[in-house]
């Protein structure tokens, strides 16, 4: 089916749930007005990124009023959004929610928490342990949060689980201003999103935030990528934006006829060899 996706490149305020809910609602209204069927927000859209000790203070249970509100809104538009989730045993997760038709369809907890360089996630958050695709009105979808995408196995597993659309929610800091072209981190991401789409014959929707936190900039540049790896729409760099991407449903079918890489993927060999490697590995 053809559908329209909005990528909401917002600028959350650090630790301010109410202000960020207002930003989210405003973007949703704009998305609906632009005819979008699905709106994707960045990683930690409700909270901001460099939370540190704020993590427990801004964490939400899945029955929180804010999430109830998003559920109601999802009757009008499907929503993918990042927030801090607290579990009943008080673990805190960097999570992404997928809401549709008034219900939570899926919760993805970030598996790969970067804790190096300028990142400090694992100090404050617990690691997700699952990668699962799920069904939506746009077909089967998989969600990834930022660093998850940098581990080849993560989008691979989702694609093998049947995902034909990958949503990547991101808070990627801009780094590496050099002589040649754009930002180092933007150039790397652009290669990554496009290659992932091409390898897995999947659509990729990448939503990255903007703004500054303690001098660190988030570069935006959200993208819609077709299953052939071609970027069809791209958001502004370093500025707020709402990218509206019209998805040609037939393009995925045609790509999978033209390039049946996923059809030919041999899960049995992969599993067999991974098991062997795991067995032989010295932990």
């Amino acid at each position, binding site marked *: 089916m053809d559908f329209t996706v909005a990528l909401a490149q917002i600028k959350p305020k650090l630790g301010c749930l109410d202000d960020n809910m207002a930003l989210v609602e405003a973007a949703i209204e704009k998305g609906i007005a632009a005819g979008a069927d699905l709106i994707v927000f960045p990683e930690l859209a409700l909270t901001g990124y460099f*939370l*540190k000790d704020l993590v427990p203070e801004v964490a939400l249970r899945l029955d929180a009023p804010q999430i109830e509100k998003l559920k109601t809104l999802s009757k009008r538009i499907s929503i993918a959004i990042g927030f801090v989730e607290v579990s009943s045993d008080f673990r805190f997760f960097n999570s992404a929610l997928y809401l549709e038709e008034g219900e939570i369809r899926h919760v993805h907890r970030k598996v790969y928490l970067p804790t190096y360089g300028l990142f400090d996630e694992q100090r404050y958050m617990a690691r997700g342990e699952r990668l699962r695709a799920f069904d939506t009105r746009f077909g089967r979808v998989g969600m990834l949060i930022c660093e998850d995408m940098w581990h080849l196995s993560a989008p691979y597993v989702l694609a093998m689980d049947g995902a034909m659309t990958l949503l990547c929610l991101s808070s990627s800091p801009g780094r590496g201003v050099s002589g040649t072209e754009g930002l180092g981190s933007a150039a790397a991401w652009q290669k990554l999103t496009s290659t992932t789409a091409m390898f897995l014959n999947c659509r990729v929707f990448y939503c990255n935030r903007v703004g500054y936190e303690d*001098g660190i900039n988030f570069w935006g540049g959200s993208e819609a990528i077709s299953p052939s790896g071609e970027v069809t729409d791209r958001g502004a760099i370093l500025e707020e934006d709402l990218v509206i991407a019209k998805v040609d449903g037939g393009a995925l079918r045609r790509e999978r006829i033209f390039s049946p890489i996923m059809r030919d993927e041999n899960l049995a060999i992969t599993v067999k060899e991974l098991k062997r490697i795991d067995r032989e590995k010295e932990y």
Partner: protein
Amino acid sequence: MGALSVNTALLRQILVGFVRDEVCKVGLKKGVLGLSGGIDSALVAYIAAEALGPENVYAYCMPYRTSNPESEAHARLVAESLGINFKVIEITGMVDAYFDLYPEASNMRRGNKMARERMTILYDHSAEVAGLVLGTSNKTELLLGYGTLHGDMASALNPIGDIYKSQVWELSEAMGVPHEVIEKKPSADLWAGQTDEQELGFTYRDADELLYRMVDQRMSREELIAAGFDAQFIDNVHRKVQGSHFKRRLPIIAKVSNRTIDRDFRYARDWGK
């Protein structure tokens, strides 16, 4: 070489956005800075004027009686070409009043006092005009510790602290800083004829090439030597970086409680903004 060359259009966009975002975020719209007549403060003035509008930038030139008159002339030139607010506040009276008590004080003590005197003036004026003090120390100076703690190293925001002196030159060209300012020899103007490079014992260009590889690329001493850097130069620069590290950190607090500021009481400075 040439690894230090930057995409100036992109760098400009990030730094201008940074100043605008960080000033507005605290509910203000003005920036305050010391304009020495040198390139670093000139570049910050250019960035601030673009970010906040020239009418919201307040520049202060704070000469001492022995300062080179050319410095004030260059500061004025920058202020006039941008159309920012400009005021000259001479520090001779306050500095001399203090050193009348300590006539034997060394050049270093005098220079440090002047730098701190200027910073108290900037903070006072930041309260007067309701603005934030913009820092003007570049990455080379910060890494070498070539600055005065609580003096010129102090600020509320520093847009150029992550770019090397060579990149300051490149960005200044791109942003239209007057050539007189770009082309003169860097000097803290502490005494007649003083230049930074003479005092440091090496050029900023050489230091930048080394620091970029040492700090940003994390090349080992062996790799730096293999890349053609002199071992003594490497050790000299390394010693300066290590020896000045205290200047780049907050004061340390003796830890006795369960949650001590900055050890395990950790929030971003932009908390709630």
